[in-house]
């Protein structure tokens, strides 16, 4: 791995291994399954790294580990050089605000009992004045191209695209540095995917964000990524610049993925 000296590494994952303990139906036999096996990669500040793999390949476990929701069995996750899994509670809360997830299922990611306004207020720095909060909410809403009418809606009153935009707005509102987009747009239809891809690249420039883009779909990866990593059966089998991966993939699985791609 060559580290570009001119750029700062924002997040580094070192030898990450996560095992799940599984039981059969009655819990008699127990076995461990490697969800992730010795995965290492880094993300430069301001870059979009895409991780591609099929459902169950472990790519979401990476996201969950980075987000401090699934603890690694071995390995480290370094954010600006600091080990995320050694943070104290206050540091962890500060870290969480810098690194925000957007999940596939927008329905599931929004509290059904809160209006959009309260959700966004929760994401803002609490110390702000009410006027400043309202100003920022408007700013973030317009950044994700939503009308202000949605503020007084509950999630179930919004369309799928609107919900995903609310999720993105909420992720921005914490003044985050990095978004983890875990299949964030994959289940949408293509026109909406196109909208969101465009939106994401605008936001990246506007708020100088770093993206970890996790997907099973190479077509959207081709549009958004700078570098691409391929995950198969819990291992990172190949990682490199987008053009390298798309033009001269080394691994047979990557070649097959490209060959079978949608178009």
């Amino acid at each position, binding site marked *: 791995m060559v580290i570009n000296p001119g750029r700062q590494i924002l997040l580094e994952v070192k030898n990450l291994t996560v095992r799940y303990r599984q039981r059969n139906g009655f819990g008699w036999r127990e076995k461990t399954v490697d969800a992730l096996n010795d995965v290492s990669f880094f993300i430069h500040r301001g870059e979009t790294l895409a991780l591609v793999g099929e459902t169950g390949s472990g790519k979401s476990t990476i996201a969950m580990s980075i987000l401090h929701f699934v603890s690694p069995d071995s390995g480290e996750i370094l954010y600006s050089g600091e080990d995320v899994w050694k943070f104290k509670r206050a540091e962890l809360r*500060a870290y969480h605000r810098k690194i925000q997830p957007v*999940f596939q299922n927008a329905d599931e*990611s*929004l*509290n*059904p009992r809160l209006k959009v306004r309260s959700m966004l207020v929760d994401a803002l720095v609490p110390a702000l004045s009410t006027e400043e909060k309202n100003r920022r909410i408007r700013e973030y809403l317009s950044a994700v191209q939503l009308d202000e009418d949605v503020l007084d809606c*509950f999630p179930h009153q919004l369309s799928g695209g609107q919900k995903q935009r609310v999720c993105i707005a909420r992720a921005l509102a914490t003044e985050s540095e990095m978004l983890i987009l875990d299949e964030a747009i994959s289940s949408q239809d293509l026109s909406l995917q196109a909208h969101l891809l465009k939106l994401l690249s605008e936001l990246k420039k506007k708020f100088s964000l770093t993206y970890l883009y996790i997907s099973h779909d190479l077509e959207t990866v081709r549009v958004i990524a700078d570098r691409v990593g391929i995950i198969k059966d819990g291992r990172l089998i190949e990682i490199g610049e987008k053009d390298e991966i798309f033009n001269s993939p080394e691994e047979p699985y990557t070649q097959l993925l490209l060959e079978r791609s949608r178009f």
Partner: protein
Amino acid sequence: MWGEKTFRCGTVLILTILLLCVCLPWVMPQDPYAQNLEEISQPPSLAHPFGTDFFGRDLFSRILYGGRLSLTIGIVVTFFAVVIGTIIGMVSGYFGGWPDAALMRFVDVMLGFPRLFILLTVIGFTRPSFGLMLAVLSLFSWMEVARIVRAEVLTVRERLYVKSAVALGLSRRRVLFRYIFPNILSPIIVSATLMVGSVIVIESGLSFIGMGVQPPDASWGTILNQGFQDLAGAWWITLFSGLAIVVTVIGFNLVGDGLRNILDSKTGVRES
């Protein structure tokens, strides 16, 4: 909300009973304690719609007065049980680890005691009183709620909106009260309404065997007990006090079931 039929029936029933119990003692002419030895054990008539008891007291008035006690016990005990159960369940479910293990073992221990026998023992050693019964019933009724709440918290805790809230850097208290609590409220409310009915039944049972409310105070249980002393001769005493219990319990259960339907369909939370 009003469109839900079960809920509407239940609410009308409960409100009627509450209204009767709360207001009618002022409107009703007969004093429930006034004994009238000339009208002992009268069957239902125009003057006494539910008849009279062995001391010639008007049964209708007594049942309404008794309802005050029975309902108070039902509601107060449920309130305390739900508060205790919710707090313990939420702490247990949200924090997990050793607090969870400790609290749940405590719940198991509490459930291990047969509630009725504990009540009998405690009351047997002291003088039966209204306050004591409230306290003991409350202390031994929250376990079910704690378990329901814990299970719900465990499910909701894994939902992505809770994870997203954690990722917003919100404090644990805020996550618990703003993101988890409102989403487990409906099972709590439902189990609370169902509980009121069961507490009333237990109270009646205790009073029936003479361990609850003491004469001359009346609760539905004591009146029922009285009726049993001469079931063949004065059937109406048993019938009407029993009916009062049954109707109230049904009313609360209807409200509970109706609320479940309403809360689950609203906001599309459980819509498939």
